[in-house]
């Protein structure tokens, strides 16, 4: 440490501090908890996707008409597409240990940009792949039950699904704007 040239440095270094001592056992426990949390989060995401795919496979295997089979096959393909896209685009990277400040700030910015791309393009990787399944389902149901009451119910369901798509899309766009603001701030942080 060099000789202090400025009295403010002395003021800073002489400030009273109360040191927190952490036993190694406590640190190991906390580090383990952190790693378990990350591992479980990843497992949860994949298990949820596998359950959804499993359900659709079951429906596919037990359905008897062609349009139902096509519907479930399209949903399975969409779910697999979403899982792969989430894995490719959504997996968080890890900052190399001991990285200097410049590297770490650039890393944080790249991570925010990646997250912005994920939420900003939610239509293309998450919502759009589900559309063909819903369209074929609607056609199949309308063909199978050619009654005005059934069609009304079907139209209501489609409106609800379209509404949910719209809400998901808007929420993700809002998240993208929030990330944009943070990226702009980080641009000047160096």
């Amino acid at each position: 440490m060099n000789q202090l040239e400025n009295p403010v440095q002395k003021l800073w270094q002489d400030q009273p501090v109360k040191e927190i001592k952490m036993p190694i056992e406590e640190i190991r426990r906390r580090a383990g908890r952190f790693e378990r949390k990350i591992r479980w989060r990843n497992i949860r995401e994949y298990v949820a996707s596998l359950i959804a795919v499993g359900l659709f496979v079951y429906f596919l295997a037990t359905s008897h008409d062609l349009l139902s089979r096509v519907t479930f096959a399209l949903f399975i393909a969409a779910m697999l597409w979403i899982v792969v896209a989430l894995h490719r685009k959504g997996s968080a990277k890890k900052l190399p240990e001991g990285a200097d400040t410049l590297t770490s700030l650039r890393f944080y910015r790249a991570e925010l940009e990646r997250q912005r791309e994920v939420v900003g393009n939610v239509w293309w990787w998450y919502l759009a792949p589900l559309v063909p399944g819903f369209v074929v389902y609607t056609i199949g149901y309308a063909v199978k039950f050619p009654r005005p009451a059934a069609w009304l119910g079907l139209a209501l369901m489609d409106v609800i699904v379209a509404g949910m798509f719209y809400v998901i899309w808007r929420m993700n766009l809002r998240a993208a704007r929030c990330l944009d603001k943070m990226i702009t701030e980080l641009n000047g942080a160096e």
Partner: protein
Amino acid sequence: MAASAQDELYAETAQTYGAAIERLARAYEADADLRRDLVQDIHVALWRSFAAFEGRCSLRTWLYRIAHNVGASHVLRQRRIRDQELVGLEELENLPDANGLQAADRSHALDRLLGLIQRLKPMDRHVILSYLEGLDAALIGEITGLSAANVATKVHRIKNMLARQFQLGGSAS
């Protein structure tokens, strides 16, 4: 790295730089409870990081890099909750003079210094903290990844700003 070596490196660093970690945490978090959590996060990150430590830099450089990165990530996370705008050294340099806080006002001066530091953007905060900890320009460059010219410019600005805002019985060179 063997677990015992990791433990030993951590224990040595925590023993030597425990007070510096506390001071850095004060610069990153004003709230006492959140600051205690932050200090613990830095200790955990430091211990974990030693599993990847290959001795390519000094323990001090390694410690400051880890501590600053945890601090910066804390500031960015808190930034989503608190709507406080962070500024650069240039803005602090242009603040009006404080008419010289005198030696008698040391506790006020420290509060004021912390207030100024806590407004800074991450990189400028790293540089001023490193300067206040007494690290030389070469070491500041090694910790931050900034070029020597960049560090020199920032340190010059810091000295100017401190000279204008504080007069504590010595001259800022």
